[in-house]
């Protein structure tokens, strides 16, 4: 079975996948100026400091944009599927991508919630689905 696994060994991003493996959603943030940093970077471009760390997010967000892919590209992702871009409630400046099977009815700003997809023989991905956490 073809699949695409994330490289979870990059020293600047590995913490994201390590947390996901434990069922936690995290984002990088500057401990000095409080800016969220995504894609995650060790250095804070806002205050110029290096005091950045992973923070826990509560796992809810809102839908910013989406596209339903109907042209098959990769055997691991049978079309149709829908790519969603979600803004975290904890830090709206952090946007994460997720995949929803099929062609769901979606609307901008609707609530989305995280779930964790354990990939066969590999890392865990935080994923997103429509709906507010219970």
């Amino acid at each position: 079975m073809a699949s695409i696994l994330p490289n979870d060994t990059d020293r600047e991003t590995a913490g994201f996948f390590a947390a996901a493996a434990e069922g936690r959603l995290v984002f990088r943030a500057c401990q000095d100026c409080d800016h969220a940093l995504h894609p995650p970077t060790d250095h804070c471009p806002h205050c110029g400091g290096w005091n950045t760390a992973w923070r826990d997010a509560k796992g809810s967000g809102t839908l910013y944009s989406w596209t339903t892919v109907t042209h098959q590209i990769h055997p691991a992702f049978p079309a149709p599927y829908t790519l969603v871009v979600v803004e975290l409630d904890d830090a709206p400046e952090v946007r994460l991508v997720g995949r929803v099977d099929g062609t769901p009815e979606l609307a901008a700003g609707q609530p989305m919630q995280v779930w964790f997809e354990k990939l066969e023989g590999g890392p865990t991905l935080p994923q997103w689905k429509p709906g507010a956490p219970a």
Partner: protein
Amino acid sequence: MIDDDLAFAGRDKCAVAGIGQTAFTRDSGRGVLSLATEASLKAIADAGLTVDDIDGIVRCEQDTVRPYSLAASLGMKDLRYWADTGPGGVAPCMMMGVAMGALLSGQAKAVLAFRSLNGRSEARLGGSGRYDGVEVAGGFGSYDEFFLPYGLQTAGQTFALMARRHMLDYGTTPEQLAAVAMTCREHANRTPHAQMAQRPLTLDDYHASRMISSPLRLFDYCLESDGACAVVITTAERAKDLAKPPVLIRAVAGGAPRDHRAGMMFPVVTRGEITEIGGRQAGTELWRRAGMGPQDMDIAQIYDCFTISVILQLEAFGFCGKGEGGPMAASGALKFGGQMPINTGGGHLSEGYVHGMNHIVQAVRQLRGEADMQVPDAETCLCTGGPLPVGSSVVFRKAA
């Protein structure tokens, strides 16, 4: 701070002296070095030069043909300068700047800039090629690990996410996207070498085409193509004695968006406003360096990997306000006979996709007055590079 005066030091000091291209096809049946060599020999001959006159080569970093390979194939005796720029479709406009840097600093006398690809038959760009087996994606500072494992894999999907947001924020419509596709198609229909020269496109055809990644349909996508383009750049002083009227490089500028994020293409979706592109910063600096503005452009070659790309750039380069790109495309202003015709050979959407380089060749043809669909009295032309993740741009003008 750096002295601003240097920004104007290159104005009109360099020129495109020669242009060349191969046929644009779906399957060239040849290797990319062979294509690059043909386009380069044509560009050198067009300038009235010989291979011995060329001493520099610049290229796109995604080209698989290396400068010294091309030099070997051409039989160049004196390769003194070479450079890569990019990324991808951003490269051609930046190549003009790299060549200027080499020429004005005395590192080269005549520079060949080229792009060669079998973008349909061999290495399909933008992630649309075939994949097999288990792959590990991302890492090493690429940030692709946040996108590829989710199935966000192509440029088309990325631009679809931008198009959706442009529709939500500004009311842009499928008919406005179609207007971009139909404008380019009409221009291709008047350009015999364009891949879509013989195929008209109606609004009904557009609506009937299959959805690829909503809201983008087949005809919102450019043509994956095989082909090569090359141009010879030299100083304006040298160019004025050569075979063809020189086309001056008035100004070149690149730009990164204010909210630029680390990584290549996909992290664009994490920007605060995903419909904002580096073309805005490139454009602001370009107009300052050129001493001109959008209103001074007779024509424009706007990088059209997708229809939405054109709309985003019309706004970014100041041809209209934010959110007004769709109505501007639908107004007819961009067609032959309109206020500022764009993509006058059919562009990437309908002429061929040589990753921005065919736009440079088309700009030069128009300003020489030798284009198939010649815009009367065209004296100035904006050329833009790929809109992600950073922008690039050139103003060309006819020598006085």
